[in-house]
């Protein structure tokens, strides 16, 4: 039995296979409509989510399976103080595979230690979000045709943005990728990620100036400054508008830049950018369903 708690739980080769499979599903989804007939996904979401939860559930339904679960910790026994360990043991009695989102870092790892069914981490606080990473690399591969030798810009909340951490960890395993990290000082990338980049011999640069760095980027990965990651509202209000992408900032960008965003967007990408062909974030959201279909299929050995 396999779990996916962090992106590297699949080897690079397995990730390539996953992307290839997701691309096949994307081209001909009806061929996979019965693959998970009779199988059940437990969708355990302790905190709000739109894309991740809906794409997991849509993925399982599109594979012919069914979904049980909850969309908030308030309506599960967690509200009565049930531990993650107990919840996952119970979920294993009713489902064949589980996707879990929980605000605490390491929660999915705990779940996997007690689970009798494969566990997929659908986001554990500010820590990891592997299926978003697989979505991101499927999108990048589809748009750029490669995953190596790129200058990858990441902008916004690099401190608490779990999608950013997971993507850096994965893309740093592909040769020749450089990273430009644009954030306010208060939301700079954590030391442990820099430690990983140094360890893997990756070039990276931290900057406070998105506009000055955008011209070098092949990929620009924008993130939201999330209110729920702050301990006090004053800090949030002061920083939330720090890095907004608009058409003026895009003037200096490469014509084949790909702009990604895990969504939801608040105002960090101006809506005028949506019409620019370099904006691929809604295509990216669509990729999320197909990569999750491929992952569910893989973990259930189907």
């Amino acid at each position, binding site marked *: 039995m396999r779990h996916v708690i962090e992106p590297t739980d699949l080897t690079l080769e397995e990730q390539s296979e996953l992307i290839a499979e997701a691309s096949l599903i994307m081209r001909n989804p009806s061929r996979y409509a019965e693959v998970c007939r009779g199988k059940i996904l437990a969708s355990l979401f302790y905190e709000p989510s739109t894309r991740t939860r809906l794409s997991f559930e849509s993925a399982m339904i599109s594979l012919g399976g069914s979904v049980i679960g909850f969309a908030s910790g308030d309506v599960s026994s967690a509200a009565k103080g049930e*531990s*993650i*360990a107990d919840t996952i043991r119970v979920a294993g009695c009713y489902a064949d595979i589980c996707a879990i989102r*929980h*605000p*605490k*870092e*390491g*929660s999915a*790892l*705990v779940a996997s*230690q007690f689970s009798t069914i494969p566990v997929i981490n659908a986001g*554990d*606080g*500010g*820590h990891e979000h592997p299926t978003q990473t697989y979505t991101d690399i499927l999108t990048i591969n589809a748009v750029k045709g490669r995953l190596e030798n790129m200058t990858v810009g990441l902008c916004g909340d690099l401190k608490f943005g779990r999608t950013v951490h997971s993507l850096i960890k994965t893309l740093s395993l592909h040769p020749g990728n450089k990273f430009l990290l644009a954030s306010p000082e208060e939301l700079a990338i954590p*030391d*442990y990620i820099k*430690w990983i980049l140094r360890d893997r011999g990756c070039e990276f640069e931290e900057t406070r100036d998105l506009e000055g760095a955008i011209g070098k980027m092949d990929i620009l990965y924008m993130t939201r400054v999330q209110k729920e990651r702050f301990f006090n509202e004053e800090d949030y209000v002061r920083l939330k508008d720090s890095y907004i992408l608009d058409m003026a900032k895009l003037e200096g960008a490469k014509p084949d830049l790909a702009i990604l965003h895990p969504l939801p967007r608040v105002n960090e990408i101006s809506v005028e950018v949506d019409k620019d062909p370099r904006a691929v974030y809604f295509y990216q959201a669509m990729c999320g369903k197909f990569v999750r279909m491929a992952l569910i299929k893989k973990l259930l050995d189907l």
Partner: protein
Amino acid sequence: MLSIDSIEKGVVIDHIKAGKAMQIYSYLNLDVLDCSVAVIKNAKSAKLGKKDIIKIEDRIDVDLNILGYMDPNITVNVIEGGMITSKLKLTLPDRLVNVIKCKNPRCVTSIEQEIAHVFKLSDKQQKVYRCVYCEQEQK
């Protein structure tokens, strides 16, 4: 002066910083052993002034890796046939289980009471350990 018989076979943990012996006794789970264990506190030491010593009789298979994390100045002598047969070189253990606690308030260990606090060694030179759950650094 207090006299503790020398041992024929076992382990002597020496040069423990005075006052730390009971902490080490606890981390090594020596309470579960059914052999003789002597804890000597505040023994005279030329090197340290005062030191603690732990003698474990009959057992040489105690997992002592934790000592490398707690105090690299501790010396460990293995005794067989009444003689010191080897001196163990202490190294930093790869994993620490329930030795230190994760201080990250966002870590799952802050709410999930039954799980062990596990850290893995991520940088030997800097003696950096990271929580296996949230990857928070603990020096």
